[in-house]
């Protein structure tokens, strides 16, 4: 048991953090957020140069063979700097499906495009009424000769508006909430019958509503078993949860620091407000919540490769619960301790709060996951 980083991991952490510290300050981020699509192709190019776009892919697929700990390190920095680029969507989500379910040809074509930074991708799973259930799919895919025809609507597809390709979940068999009968389809964004309506999200990223009407997908673009997509999606979601937990920890850590700095500077009644015990104790509670969250983000990364899928899912759920609870507390108190300035759009504290709030809604909020932990029933194993 150890919590040390290897030399390579430390180098990775330093290079990502170094780049973002130099170029991704809060003011730069504002400029990036105002770009069309809401992210910077230039930063994306640097990510490719740093090698992080190929991080979680096997070396034989053109990647760097990184694991969940490496991803954690990258996302902690992303959280600290509120990075807007479509890394989660491209590398972790769509890339996660590709690396798990893609054929040799599919991987050769698309993982190279991801790692090289030439294309971005998005994962379209959520629907109007699916909430967090990946198996609740009404979008249909019907076999027609050598191709599939997709019809349906996907909601809040993160970075779906700028993606070159979408990975879409669609029902190939069974009823709306059946766990079988779900296929994963790789669809070019310019496919006939696919339309997108993109908008900024609360946290400054972008997401799209995607409508598929009679979109024809050649059978060679099915990812894996056309009826067996759910286990793939679940594994990808767990990897995404671990990444989001780390991102949230980066954001919580920064928000706590910013708040403590503010307590040391802001004067009222003739003294720094950080001398008031009520505020000191609140800040201490933020620190406790942060450390608990940090532990669970590490836990999520370190257990991401758990073999038993049910156990792996439950452990990811446990991490997401802790992150959700801690993030809500730290986010809300970070604003409260700042007072009025925390309410303003021009100041950074609120942006951390908003990102943390949105992270809770990605791949299941704390209440969703607590019921998963309860159903699992043995997070704290009986001796």
């Amino acid at each position, binding site marked *: 048991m150890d919590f040390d980083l290897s030399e390579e991991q430390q180098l990775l952490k330093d290079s990502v953090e170094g780049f973002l510290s130099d170029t991704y300050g809060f003011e730069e981020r504002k400029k990036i957020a105002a770009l069309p699509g809401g992210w910077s192709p230039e930063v994306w190019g640097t990510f490719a140069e740093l090698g992080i776009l190929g991080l979680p892919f096997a070396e034989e697929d053109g990647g760097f063979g990184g694991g969940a700990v490496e991803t954690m390190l990258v996302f902690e920095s992303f959280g600290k700097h509120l990075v807007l680029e479509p890394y989660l969507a491209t590398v972790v989500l769509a890339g996660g499906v590709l690396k798990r379910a893609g054929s040799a040809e599919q991987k050769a074509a698309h993982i190279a495009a991801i790692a090289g930074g030439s294309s971005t991708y998005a994962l379209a799973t959520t629907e109007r009424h699916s909430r967090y259930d990946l198996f609740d799919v009404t979008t249909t895919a019907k076999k027609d000769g050598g191709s599939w025809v997709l019809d349906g609507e996907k909601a809040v597809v993160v970075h779906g508006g700028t993606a070159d390709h979408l990975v879409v979940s669609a029902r190939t068999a069974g009823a709306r909430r059946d766990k079988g009968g779900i296929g994963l389809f790789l669809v070019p964004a310019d496919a006939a019958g696919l339309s997108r309506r993109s908008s900024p999200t609360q946290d400054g990223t972008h997401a799209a509503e995607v409508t598929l009407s009679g979109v024809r997908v050649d059978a060679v673009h099915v990812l894996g078993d056309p009826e067996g997509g759910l286990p793939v999606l679940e594994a990808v979601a767990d990897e995404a949860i671990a990444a989001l937990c780390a991102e949230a920890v980066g954001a919580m850590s920064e928000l706590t620091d910013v708040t403590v700095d503010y307590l040391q500077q802001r004067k009222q009644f003739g003294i720094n407000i950080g001398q008031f015990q009520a505020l000191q104790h609140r800040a201490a509670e933020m620190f406790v919540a942060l450390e608990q969250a940090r532990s669970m983000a590490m836990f999520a990364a370190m257990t991401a490769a758990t073999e038993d899928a049910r156990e792996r899912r439950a452990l990811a759920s446990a991490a997401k619960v802790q992150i959700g609870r801690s993030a809500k507390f730290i986010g809300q108190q970070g604003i409260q301790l700042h007072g009025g300035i925390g309410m303003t759009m021009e100041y950074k504290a609120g942006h951390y709060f908003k990102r943390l709030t949105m992270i809770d809604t990605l791949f299941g909020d704390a209440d969703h996951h*607590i019921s998963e932990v309860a159903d699992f029933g043995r997070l*704290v194993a009986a001796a």
Partner: protein
Amino acid sequence: MELRFTDEEVAFRKEVQAFIDAKLPRALREKLAAGHHPTRDDIVFWQRTLNEKGWGVAHWPVEYGGTGWDAVKQYIFLEEMMMAPAPPPLAFGTSMVGPVIYTFGSDAQKKRFLPGIANLDDWWCQGFSEPGAGSDLAGLKTRAEKVGDHWVINGQKTWTTLGQYADWIFVLARTDASVKKQEGISFILVDMKTPGITVKPIQTIDGGHEVNEVFFDDVKVPLENLVGQENKGWDYAKFLLGNERTGIARVGISKQRIRRIKEMAAIEQRAGRPLIEDQRFREKIAEVEVELKALEITQLRVIAGEKKREKGKPDPASSVLKIKGSELQQATTELLMEVIGPHSAPYAPEEPGSNEPPIGPEWAQTIAPTYFNVRKVSIYGGSNEIQKNIIAKAVLGL
């Protein structure tokens, strides 16, 4: 980064479990699992059993009888003891005065006291808190005056846990009233049989008798019972209070209690079904489990960081362990209260040797008293409010 224990650590855990299975009587184990307090004899028996194996003061330096285990093994050992559950060690000896004596004491003191602590031949209690000195411990008023070849101690100590059984007490006493309050305190070892000492029980809200008041009325103590230097007692006290890091979160105790909650909730019913099938209740357990898992990892992080830290400098994250650990101990007792519901009501204080059959289910007896009793854990050892002060100052720089 690697969460898994090494093969050697896993084998070590099995060795500890096997030892417990072989040596800890089933009846005692069940009694403790049911929430009953160990008796004096239970604690002595288990300490001597461990000491015979060479595990009595596992965390001490090898030259004083320790095992030389690293922090991870110490953690595994303590966790298994808590989860068994086994009678807890008498911390006042093994974790408090013992380390003070081997670090600051004279050779004669080491020779006289350390073996007796390890084998629990001497039962120690702690003379720190006073009626007017709780969180502000340095404000203590008990005086020790040098008269001839003796200290003469006058004053009062309180919250003296298990002082009713004690052979010895380690006392913080004021030896210089003319200087800053922290600088005039000395650390003195006092034989409880010395004339002038009176122990009076304090009954706590659970109905139990764990703590006492101890009165000192012209108590004569040999000068050589001073530990270290005169007026340096505050330093030794701080060392002592910062010393008990491993296990401060009591993760094993909370784990054991969660196990019990689930067992009991499978028996108790709500709406004609086992309570454990009630989704809302299951989620309440899950909330505590998640926090406890997080705390366990936090604990392991502190332990893993221990080897990199300067000796004797506690990790500031220890305060996180104390705060969360105590909150979770309390949360688990609250859940047990919820499990037993109306059957928590009958009040039957433990009477040694009583053969009266229990009123209501046998396991219900201890639940409310434990709930009431465990409110103490966020108060003692530096209240959680003090811990938050420590985080604010030492960690956040406020």
